């Protein structure tokens, strides 16, 4: 027994040690990561972020230098009262803020750098830089901020913001305090624009002094500058669209049908992109983001799903022809609406009756399209099958699903099919009469303005479209191949001509007669969509949305456009006017119908938007008068100049 005591103790101690070592070195130790090694200082060298040019080579976004004061809390030595006062004065913060910021940084990590005071001005930086050595644990990190050369296109260009911890966890490339694209092309082309940071590893000693490069700089890298990009936006057209959209809510999307390039992408209301740069960004962003009434950060051109209204009738006409359930000469009677037995399923406005396809489109006759639509759905004994075929055709125009493009936001829209109604009503417990609203673009059908613009492009191209996209070229690189491949619709090319004639006649003799542009053959379609909101849980109707979809010229179209103006009442009233102005601006480069332009710039819908929030009863549509504002003391050119596009 006596012989065993020391032997047993030695073995026990050995086992305890190995267990403890296993715990320290294997169980509790993550694999070695130089970025977490506090003995190695990491010095980042930020590359130039790529510039952004518009399709005509105009510089839209450049960079400006910015200086962040960073802190590594563990290395901060306590400041005496005098030093503290000086430091706070230099940084323009109070002592309470100093303590608060330091604690916040320490809570994140005592070892890793956190931004202490971000984005100093140049003068503050110059003063601070000389005294920085006195304050241990703090250093200045140079970065570059965006410098917008324009005040337009906030929704297109997007902005940069500090990375949050969720992003850092997912993408370790980013460190706290780094900037990343948050919206727009800054987000969708982040990888291209950002470049790659350079890094230097420096061995420290325990007094936190640098004692030389880590492993002779073997792992150090140089920064790779970000690539410049050219976007498809025509900044002049974009600026003009934003000007037209003033005092209105809605979206305009203009495309080049022959390439799918987005020429303009307007949302209203918008804001100046310079608001989201630098120290003021967070404050301004939350102000914009929390404005749930105007929703300036909500891109109505991409994200707003509206019932498309009458422009959708064109699709029904095309499907009817493709399915051979209607001939162009077939005429349908309209008795101020469509009657099923004695029940009126939809109303209609006053026009000649009966109408054939051309006139049905030009006059936007509801009864005509309900007839066509019912024939499509009822082509087979099973309404579900008819509905599925209808849905497939409609979806081939890029509706009802994501466009799969290079924009940071988007919506699917909705094109219902047979299953959809089976779920709504029960299997086969519905028929074409239940769902006639789809015939005229109301009911369950929904689309975003960009989808409608793309639809117009597909019609203008007589049966195909390119995915709408915003990238035109990348410095030293090619744009994704998917934007070069045409998508064909399920409608035969020959069926398009009569329908396009109908859209042409919308201008010649139909609902947009007053909007003709001399010298340009425009094909379009007006739309008016009823809409409702809940006010104190009562479903209340608001003034109709004004919709217009068009392409021009009629042959080999150069522009396809969708305009959506919330509560603008009827199609040609706001949207139609704006669409024709945009088309003229793009094709001719100048406006010949200044009276029309003046009308748009001096009429506001702001009173209209206040109604649901007024707590008072209000009238809609024809019973209201339009608000006129006097902002035309300045001519359009100067107003455009002010936009600094």
């Amino acid at each position, binding site marked *: 027994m006596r012989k065993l005591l*020391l032997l047993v103790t030695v073995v026990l101690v050995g086992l305890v*040690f190995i267990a403890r070592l296993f715990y320290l070195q*294997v169980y509790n130790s993550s694999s070695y990561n130089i970025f977490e090694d506090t*003995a190695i200082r990491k010095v980042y060298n930020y590359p130039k972020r790529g510039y952004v040019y518009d399709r005509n080579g105009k510089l839209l976004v450049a960079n400006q230098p910015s200086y962040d004061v960073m802190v590594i809390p563990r290395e901060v030595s306590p400041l005496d009262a005098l030093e503290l006062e000086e430091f706070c004065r230099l940084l323009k913060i109070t002592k309470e803020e100093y303590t608060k910021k330091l604690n916040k940084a320490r809570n994140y990590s005592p070892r890793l750098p956190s931004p202490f005071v971000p984005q100093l001005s140049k003068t503050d930086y110059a003063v601070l830089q000389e005294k920085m050595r006195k304050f241990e644990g703090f250093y200045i990190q140079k970065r570059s901020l965006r410098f917008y050369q324009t005040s337009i296109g906030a929704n297109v260009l997007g902005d940069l913001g500090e990375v949050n911890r969720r992003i850092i966890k997912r993408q370790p490339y980013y460190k706290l305090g780094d900037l990343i694209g948050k919206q727009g092309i800054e987000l969708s082309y982040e990888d291209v624009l950002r470049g790659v940071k350079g890094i230097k590893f420096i061995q420290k000693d*325990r007094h936190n002094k640098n004692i030389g490069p880590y492993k002779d700089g073997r792992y150090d890298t140089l920064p790779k500058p970000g690539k410049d990009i050219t976007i498809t936006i025509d900044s002049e057209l974009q600026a003009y669209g934003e000007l037209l959209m003033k005092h209105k809510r809605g979206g305009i999307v203009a495309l080049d049908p022959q390439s799918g390039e987005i020429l303009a992408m307007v949302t209203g209301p918008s804001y100046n992109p310079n608001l989201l740069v630098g120290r003021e960004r967070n404050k301004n962003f939350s102000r914009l983001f929390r404005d749930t009434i105007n929703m300036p950060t909500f891109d109505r051109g991409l994200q707003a799903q509206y019932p498309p209204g009458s422009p959708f009738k064109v699709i029904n006409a095309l499907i009817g022809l493709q399915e051979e359930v209607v001939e162009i000469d077939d005429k349908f009677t309209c008795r101020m609406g469509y009657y099923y037995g004695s029940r009126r399923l939809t109303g209609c406005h006053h026009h000649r009756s009966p109408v054939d396809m051309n006139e049905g489109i030009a006059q936007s006759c509801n009864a005509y399209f309900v007839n066509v639509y019912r024939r499509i759905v009822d082509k087979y004994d099973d309404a579900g099958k008819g509905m599925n075929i209808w849905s497939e055709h409609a979806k081939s125009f890029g509706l009802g699903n994501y466009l799969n493009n290079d924009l940071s936001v988007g919506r699917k829209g909705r094109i219902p099919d047979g299953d959809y109604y089976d779920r709504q009503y029960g299997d086969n417990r519905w028929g074409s009469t239940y769902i006639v609203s789809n015939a005229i673009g109301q009911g369950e059908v929904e689309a975003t303005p960009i989808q409608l613009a793309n639809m117009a492009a597909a019609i203008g191209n007589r049966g195909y479209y390119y995915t709408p996209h915003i990238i035109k070229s990348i410095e030293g690189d090619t744009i994704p191949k998917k934007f070069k491949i045409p998508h064909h619709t399920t409608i035969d090319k020959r069926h398009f001509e009569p329908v396009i004639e109908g859209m042409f006649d919308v201008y010649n003799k139909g609902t947009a007669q007053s909007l003709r542009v001399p010298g340009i053959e425009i094909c379009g379609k007006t739309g008016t969509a009823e809409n409702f909101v809940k006010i104190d849980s009562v479903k209340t109707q608001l003034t109709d949305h004004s919709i217009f979809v068009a392409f021009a010229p009629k042959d080999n179209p150069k522009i396809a456009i969708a305009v959506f103006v919330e509560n603008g009442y009827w199609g040609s009233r706001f949207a139609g006017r704006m669409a024709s102005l945009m088309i003229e601006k793009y094709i001719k480069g100048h406006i010949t119908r200044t009276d029309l332009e003046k009308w748009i710039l001096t009429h506001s819908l702001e009173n209209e938007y206040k109604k649901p929030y007024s707590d008072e009863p209000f009238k809609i549509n024809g019973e209201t008068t339009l608000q006129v504002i006097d902002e035309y003391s300045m001519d359009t050119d100067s107003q455009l100049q002010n936009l600094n596009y």
Partner: protein
Amino acid sequence: MLRENHRGFKFDWIIIILFLLLVGFGYLNILSASHVGEVTNYFDTTQLYGKQLVFLGLTFVLVILILSFEAKFYERFASIIYLVAILALIGLFIFGKDVNGARSWYGIGSMTIQPSEFAKFATALAVAKYISDLQTNMQTLKDQLRVTAIIFIPALLILLQNDAGSTIVYLAFFFVFYREGLQQIYLIIGLSLIVLAVLGLKFGVLITGGGVAIVLITTYFLRKKKRGSILQYILVLLISVIFSYGVKLFYQHGIKPHQQNRISLWLRLEKDPAKLERMKKSEAYNLIQSEQAISSGGFSGKGFLEGTRTTGKFVPEQETDYIFSTVGEEWGFLGTSFVVLIFVCLIIRILYLAEAQKSQFSRVYGYGVASILFIHFTINIGMVMGLIPTVGIPLPFFSYGGSGLWGFTILLFIFVKLDSNKINEW
């Protein structure tokens, strides 16, 4: 039988190989812990790694010297060697040199010598000599007191020189005494006192007393036959309470503040966050740094000369007492468990050989060697990993320093010599 056939080399080759592994690996880690920039000259004696190389060279001379003496020499001269060592320790009070507050060094020119490192083997020799005397009986109180005095004298002298760490090493001889016949009751009492001291500090005297009472009551009712009188139990309880209270008083007033803080850190007694924060920069700093260095090594380590914390000299005293943190960072779990394994093997080998000795002197000495190495190994590595409170003693054959290296080498090789001689004994 085999050994007799190998007349050419009669020394225990297992010990020698383990020794070579330790000093060799130790040197590599000292090189790593002490180099600055690129190493151009390994023999640069202005650098610690250069000096250590010189020490190592002299160590081999020393080994040959020790092995060339007659084995009987050590037994015969044990008392004299002990006396010389004691004189050397006393001499420090007059001729000694203060380093870091401890008066433990003689300065000879640019060299320093630490006699306490040599006092260990001298004491081991003296203890072996006394116990192996035919008239000594470790069961008697008289001999127990005398042999305690042999270790108490150098321990006290070292304590007075302000080197508390080296004093604790002398507790190692308890294992020797126990092996040679010290009554079991001492072991039980010793262990009980350690448990009482720790519990008393951690949970307070009241709770500890309550715990002891519960244990005593349970024992009383379990022992149906030989219960003894209740008075005995009350006496044990009383002594326990008085002892743990005494420990508490000693902890609060009897030791230096930095020692107090080390214990408080170990038992996690300090709850005040502000004070803890301050401790992190003083008493706990070394420990935090060394634990970080060790765990940053991971399974296979960062590689020889590649440790970032070692290169940045993050762990103070990383070439001496904290050398194990360098092993941990650069060689990882593989390296650290290798070192632990070698020490365990070495100690077990010594114990095995000690038990096989024919002369009691050799056996007791071997036990002394094993015990001293064991205490150093346990305290040093335990401290570097935060398992026991900080006590500044070196890791044998690893830590930088000539006195230490030579002290341990002499300690070990006297035993190797004694062992080689056992076939000649009757």
